[in-house]
């Protein structure tokens, strides 16, 4: 199957997802251009990658005499030589054809599917109640006709053609963008540099600045959408605004990657930091509450990433530490919800309904109890690896939940702990301090943001130290790591304890956000969500984890309107994601290298991956790495 057809099929799958979750129905008349644009973005990404490999496979004119079969080229030093052939004759035409073919594939499939549905609906066949509620609206929007026309089978056939042509146009547009970007880059940076994607200084300068400017533009849109009287995409303003908030936050991460390491990156990160920090003040209660939960999961993801991503210990019971953190805060904040503690305190003569500790005083306590829980779990599983470890940790998570459920005297069982105090700001309510600018949910979001940043800071620094190296070594080969001098017990327990501490922090904030917590808040699915978001985002990459949380915890909230089958559609999206980008959306350098090596098989892409890896290493070391460049091969 030609690559372009495959691209078209993947695009179709993505588009089907967007259609299934009801995007056309929501955007009304703009559906077709919007979808075509989304498809064009995807085509652009794929085409750029393909054209890169192709131009690498084309032998240079000098080497034409000793042409070899394609699969052999790309081994060893030859791969480096063959990058100059971008401007070969016929190449632009080929890219254009590929773009058009991919677009046409996706467009035709969409046209066919919508025709089938229009036909079914036109003939009055009922499929399933939920389905029937959503499908006509979507199909109608996709075809640019009114839902009534679909119901009465009065769709002009030309509409199908137009809908197909839209996507073909998207493909051609993408091809043109690829060509324009390539010649631009080739002129500006020389042939070898434009290959590395968003990972370094090689990105086209115009494109780079565009990527850097994008989050700020999106933030402006978010703020604009919040102004009174502004309306976009009909009556669902709040959700649309949330969507833009999610995209703006996500694009900020790409902007960070696009910035040149050093001063530029520092400046961009400061600006993005400021931009993100102003979000809690401009969003409304709903958006803030969603973003709050997203960043609470970022905190968890970053912690779990230490255990799973760095130390390589598959922990399926991570929710346990989340629960420990939450309940610890609950006990000291609302002690009279717990019959046992309540009795104890009354006996001591403490007046009813007074909290023992405030949020900030409870912070170290939640961290310590969670870390203790981490060590408690860590000790018995020290000798376990892989599947066995996963099963035991899974059980541990359930044990903690069942404790909370059945220790009714202490935890109030399924009735939960109620009226947990909000975090205060210098002893005052945040609304009062900020003069009403900061809502209660905005305050939680702000705290989650700051905590995530602190956790990411600690995680990145630890990963860059001897402890981080010991974790990776342990993940690769436990026995050898120990024989090389790594103290396995200490290193493992540290991973468990640090990961648990972060989860405890997240749990405490979660308890404050929920105000009332119940054992059912801490089911296995929280663990699964946390694990899924780091896998989707990119194991080992803090930026990827933020992106994963935005996609997995934020996006479903946007799709609230289509409750029933959003989970199905979401699962499909995950599967496709893992096929297209097995290392995650924003993979860490190590994973990127590994995935590229697997994809290459015979080592075709390995030299390139290697190069990006080396580059990432340099980036990570920042400006201090200048001396090391000389030592590179």
């Amino acid at each position: 199957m030609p690559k372009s057809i495959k691209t078209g099929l993947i695009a179709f799958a993505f588009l089907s997802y967007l259609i299934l979750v009801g995007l056309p129905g929501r955007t009304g008349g703009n559906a077709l251009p919007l979808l075509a644009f989304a498809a064009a973005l995807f085509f652009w990404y794929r085409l750029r990658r393909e054209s890169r490999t192709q131009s690498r496979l084309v032998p240079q004119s000098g080497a034409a005499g000793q042409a070899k079969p394609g699969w052999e080229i790309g081994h060893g030093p030859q791969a480096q030589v063959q990058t100059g052939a971008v401007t070969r004759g016929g190449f632009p035409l080929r890219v254009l054809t590929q773009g058009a073919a991919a677009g046409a594939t996706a467009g035709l499939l969409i046209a066919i599917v919508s025709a089938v549905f229009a036909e079914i609906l036109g003939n009055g066949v009922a499929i399933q109640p939920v389905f029937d509620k959503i499908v006509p609206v979507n199909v109608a929007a996709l075809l640019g006709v009114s839902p009534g026309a679909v119901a009465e089978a009065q769709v002009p056939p030309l509409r199908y053609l137009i809908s197909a042509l839209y996507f073909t146009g998207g493909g051609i547009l993408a091809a043109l963008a690829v060509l324009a970007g390539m010649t631009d880059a080739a002129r500006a940076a020389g042939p070898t540099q434009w290959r590395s994607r968003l990972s370094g200084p090689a990105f086209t300068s115009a494109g780079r600045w565009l990527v850097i400017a994008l989050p700020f533009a999106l933030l402006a849109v978010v703020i604009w959408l919040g102004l009174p009287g502004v309306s976009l995409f009909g009556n669902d303003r709040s959700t649309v605004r949330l969507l833009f908030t999610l995209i703006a936050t996500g694009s900020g991460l790409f902007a960070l990657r696009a910035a040149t390491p050093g001063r530029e990156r520092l400046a961009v990160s400061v600006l993005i930091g400021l931009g993100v920090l102003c979000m809690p003040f401009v969003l409304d209660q709903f958006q803030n509450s969603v973003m709050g939960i997203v960043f609470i999961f970022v905190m968890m993801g970053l912690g779990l990433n230490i255990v799973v991503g760095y130390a390589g210990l598959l922990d399926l019971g991570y929710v346990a530490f989340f629960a420990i953190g939450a309940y610890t805060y609950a006990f000291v904040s609302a002690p009279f919800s717990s019959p046992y503690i309540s009795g104890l305190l009354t006996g001591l003569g403490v007046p009813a309904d007074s909290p023992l500790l405030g949020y900030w005083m409870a912070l170290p306590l939640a961290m310590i109890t969670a870390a203790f829980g981490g060590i408690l779990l860590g000790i018995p599983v020290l000798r376990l690896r892989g599947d066995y470890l996963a099963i035991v940790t899974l059980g541990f998570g359930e044990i903690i939940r069942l404790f909370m459920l059945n220790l009714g005297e202490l935890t109030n069982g399924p009735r939960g702990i109620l009226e947990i105090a909000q975090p205060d700001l210098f002893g005052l309510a945040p609304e009062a301090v900020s003069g009403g600018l900061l809502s209660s949910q905005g305050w939680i979001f702000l705290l989650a943001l700051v905590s995530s940043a602190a956790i990411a800071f600690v995680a990145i620094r630890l990963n860059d130290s001897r402890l981080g190296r010991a974790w990776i070594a342990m993940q690769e080969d436990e026995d050898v790591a120990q024989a090389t001098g790594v103290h396995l017990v200490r290193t493992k327990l540290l991973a468990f304890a640090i990961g648990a501490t972060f989860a405890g922090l997240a749990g405490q904030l979660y308890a404050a956000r929920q105000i009332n917590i119940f054992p059912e808040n801490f089911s296995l699915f929280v663990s699964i969500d946390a694990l899924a978001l780091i896998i989707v985002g990119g194991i080992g990459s803090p930026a990827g984890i933020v992106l994963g949380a935005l996609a997995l915890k934020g996006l479903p909230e946007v799709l609230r309107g289509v409750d029933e089958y959003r989970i199905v559609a979401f699962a499909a999206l995950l599967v496709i994601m893992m096929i297209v980008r097995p290392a995650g959306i924003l993979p860490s350098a190590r994973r990127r290298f590994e995935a590229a090596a697997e994809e290459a098989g015979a080592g075709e892409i390995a030299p390139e991956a290697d190069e990006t890896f080396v580059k990432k290493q340099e980036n990570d070391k920042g400006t201090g790495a200048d001396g090391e460049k000389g030592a590179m091969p």
Partner: protein
Amino acid sequence: MTVLLAVQSVTKVFGGLVAVDKVDVDIREGSIASLIGPNGAGKTTLFNCLTGLYRPEEGEILFENQSLVGLRSDEITARGIARTYQNIRLFGRMTALENVLVGQHLRLHASHWSAILRTARQQAEERAARETGRELLDFVGLGGQAEVVATNLPYGDQRLLEVARALGSRPRLLLLDEPAAGMNPRETERMMELMHRLRDEMGVTVFLIEHDMKVVMSISENVTVLDYGKKIASGAPDEVRANPRVVEAYLGPEVAVDGPVTAQEH
């Protein structure tokens, strides 16, 4: 010369199989010694006992007159014994330099708090560790490959990197498990030269398992021969080569009776 490592009637049993049977070996400080024997003779098992991967059922292992039996492998590494592996076991996803940095793990002492805060001392230690790492890579002949991911290195270089990683822990005794296996003659030559330099320039005592008789006979000052877990001979290379039990172990009894076939020709 003093005895650096004394192996005294060490026995390791797997189920009913006696993999290492009352073996005695003395390694003198500053020497290059070899351990040879047919496949399955228990050579690697003995190495694993020395480095704490296995705990011997009987016997005593003295390193600088202190017992190693019962210590964890990282504790043994801390005492000054490092090793390489028969089937290369590098940290594949890490760069060459990072591998050597893991090797130095024991010799770095900055606390994890200082790593979070990036204190001046921690940074100085990290810089020094990188510096040492590069020097060690240069030493084994991998200068300029520091940033290459370990799995991307050619086979011979991976073996050299294992040596560099082992050197990271500043060992006094280096155990090399078939360092020249799978190497071409030129690489073997390089490895032999490296072993000499290890002893002469680094002051490291070398104890190696090797199948390549040319390497064993030309490099080692002392050869110990194992067969079915038992030590059957030990001494200078020439003595061992002439020992009829060694010839028998390698070539079978019939050939041995026939006459002067030497182990070298094998």
